[in-house]
């Protein structure tokens, strides 16, 4: 068991464990990803009789192909490809899971970016039958490097390698040891923290949801992939320190119309990005800079004492301020506003990203006009080497400098997902064209 995983397993009381764990699965076409997902669904009984019927019919007497369970759209089945991220659900006694399944080839980066945004973990599939384990230093496949570098670049908190198809190698023990060594070496070089490396046979079901059989015990005592997933922490933004809350919705208080339309008390609703709030706190509204005292707090139809990061809070203030959706509520003096920041840009649109062009950005609940002031470089996703670039094409990732029309309280994505993430929307088509992860405000 890796040191990281060991630490996690011994923190079972982490408060995020009752939240659904959302993880993405990354693998290439023949890595057995669909079979692995099928296996997780099948063994956790997330598959139902009529779905099995369909599979049995299609199998026509052959063993059931579990990979067909994750088939999505008719159009894809006809073409034998997958075109988008699909979400799958299963639950064990202790936890609910959401799989964001990113298809493996066409539009790969686009799909993986979508799956990675908001995921707690990534499971990267490694097909051991494609590796030469007889040599001293096993050479990993380019897709393994690419998938893990992408997950790392997109700051997915936990990265788990599932080394698959161990049923198909003659000496699974030494082969797994050799691949583990290569994965650790690669991760160390790339600065990736490895949460766990787990041997599995998705086809036979070895060590996926069930502990490995006796024949594996000598070289792998556990845990199973499912045990690893059950132990992973969910993302929790920090609760301590200063408050940051993007105003989502301004509601008039129900049932108090007597005070006249212009003078009704209002509740300011928003999900807390970091920190906490309670009645009596002084807060500041951005960008106006006005301050007020919180007189009451609501949450989901009820009055509460205090709310923390991740919760949607409704604030009542001691005075009427001009507040609207898109504003931010902060601890007075704590936020720094900027109109310029550096970010990682993952481009998702077939229309390339062009420096100088105006786009819509969404940050928190605010839409602002912005332009890509400069494309510093493009990242080679096989090596993470920087290359000079004047535009970013679909599926490319680069480092950019953004200038916005109005000032925003951005924070590095590494410190806060909400203050550090933005989407880019093409004003001509309304398409979601890119994802921005803030590295540094200016």
């Amino acid at each position, binding site marked *: 068991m890796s040191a990281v995983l060991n630490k996690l397993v011994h923190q079972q009381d982490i408060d995020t464990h009752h939240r659904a764990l959302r993880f993405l699965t990354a693998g290439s076409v023949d890595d057995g990803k669909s079979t692995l997902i099928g296996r997780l669904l099948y063994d956790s009984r997330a598959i139902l009789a009529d779905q099995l019927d369909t599979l049995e019919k299609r199998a026509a007497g052959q063993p059931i192909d579990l990979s067909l369970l994750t088939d999505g759209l008719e159009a894809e089945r006809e073409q034998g490809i997958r075109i988008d991220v699909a979400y799958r*659900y299963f639950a064990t006694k202790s936890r609910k899971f959401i799989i964001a399944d990113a298809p493996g080839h066409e539009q790969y980066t686009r799909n993986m970016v979508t799956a990675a945004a908001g995921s707690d973990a990534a499971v990267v599939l490694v097909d051991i039958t494609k590796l030469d384990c007889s040599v001293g230093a096993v050479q990993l496949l380019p897709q393994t490097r690419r998938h893990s570098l992408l997950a790392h670049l997109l700051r997915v908190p936990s990265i788990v390698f599932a080394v698959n198809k161990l049923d198909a190698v003659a000496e699974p023990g030494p082969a797994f040891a050799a691949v583990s060594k290569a994965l650790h070496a690669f991760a160390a070089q790339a600065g990736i923290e490895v949460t766990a490396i787990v041997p599995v046979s998705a086809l036979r079901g070895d060590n996926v949801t069930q502990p490995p059989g006796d024949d594996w015990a000598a070289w792998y005592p556990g845990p199973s992939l499912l045990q690893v997933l059950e132990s992973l922490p969910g993302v929790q933004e920090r609760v301590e320190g200063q408050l940051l809350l993007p105003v989502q919705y301004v509601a008039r208080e129900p049932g108090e119309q007597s005070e006249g339309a212009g003078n009704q008390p209002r509740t300011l609703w928003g999900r807390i990005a970091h920190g906490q709030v309670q009645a009596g706190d002084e807060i500041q509204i951005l960008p106006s800079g006005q301050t007020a005292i919180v007189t009451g707090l609501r949450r989901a139809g009820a009055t509460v004492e205090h709310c923390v990061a991740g919760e*949607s809070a409704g604030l009542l203030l001691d005075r009427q301020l001009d507040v609207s959706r898109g504003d931010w509520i902060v601890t007075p003096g704590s936020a720094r506003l900027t109109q310029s920041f550096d970010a990682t840009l993952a481009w998702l649109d077939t229309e390339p990203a062009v420096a100088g062009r105006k786009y819509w950005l969404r940050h928190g609940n605010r839409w602002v006009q912005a332009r890509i002031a400069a494309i510093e470089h493009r990242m080679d996703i096989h090596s993470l080497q920087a290359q000079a670039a004047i535009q970013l094409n679909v599926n490319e990732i680069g480092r950019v400098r953004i200038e916005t029309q109005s000032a925003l309280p951005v924070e590095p994505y590494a410190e806060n997902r909400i203050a550090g993430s933005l989407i880019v929307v093409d004003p001509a088509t*309304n398409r979601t064209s890119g994802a921005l992860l803030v590295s540094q405000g200016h």
Partner: protein
Amino acid sequence: MNAPIHSKNLLPTFDQRHLDHLEEEAIFILREVAAAFERPALLFSSGKDSCVVLRLAEKAFKTRIAADGSGNEFKGRLPFPLLHVDTGHNFPEVIAFRDQLVQANGERLIVAHMDESIKNGTVRLAHPLESRNGHQTVTLLEAIEQHRFDVLIGGARRDEEKARAKERIFSHRDSFGQWQPKEQRPELWTLFNTRIRPGEHMRAFPISNWTELDVWLYLARENIPLPSLYYSHQRAVIRRKGLLVPLTAVTPPEAGETVSTATVRFRTVGDMTCTCPVESLAASATDIVAETLTVTVSERGATRMDDRTSEASMERRKKEGYF
């Protein structure tokens, strides 16, 4: 029939804390709808999923009050009306439930009648007893146009059916109400792209990430009332091709078929011509949780005659603007 139910001790042992997070997410999405759109409506069929969404909307926009026996638990009003597409083939219990509910909670209900579409000639039935399920799209799109709705809140879940596994939380519809698989926008974090052009609209699905089990756990935990046919009752049925077809005016027995009485409950409420019950003794949401944990047939498979025709039938209907 499913295994006998010993549910009394089940709920306390089942970890339900994930429901708090699902609720949080759904409420966040509902407030997003109210804040980002001009003219939303909540699709309300009286089905269990729409009853859950309605309760979530009440929590998002209203304030809980002490129960006064009226059946209303909240003060305030939703910032949007409820919209029911009435096929004219609804079970009477469902319509009665709907009317009693809006009477109690004071919400505005808009009913779009398919009979109107039939009268106006925009819906043409192949024969009088044809399933009206597929025709709902026409009546729905007419209601969208008439009331200029720019977003409809629906209770669809991604676990319901394979074509829905890729559905967005905010799903874009073009000016013909069509869903184009390749035009759906990537959804990143919770930074929803709610920008649309005039004439286009969106569908918003706050319980996308819920499973059928989550829905039943929530119904049980929150004590949300449902139409009576969701729970075990005696009903005259016709056994046909492995399904129990309820005996109604629009689903008479065919030649050679016999009518028998069975102890059943419905797992979905829809058009009487295509919604079948399953045999069950489950008399409460808690009982159904127990049953759902052991159940072997997925929701749409056991109860929807029209979904059996083809694996891809949902995808086709969705492209046509079905919800």
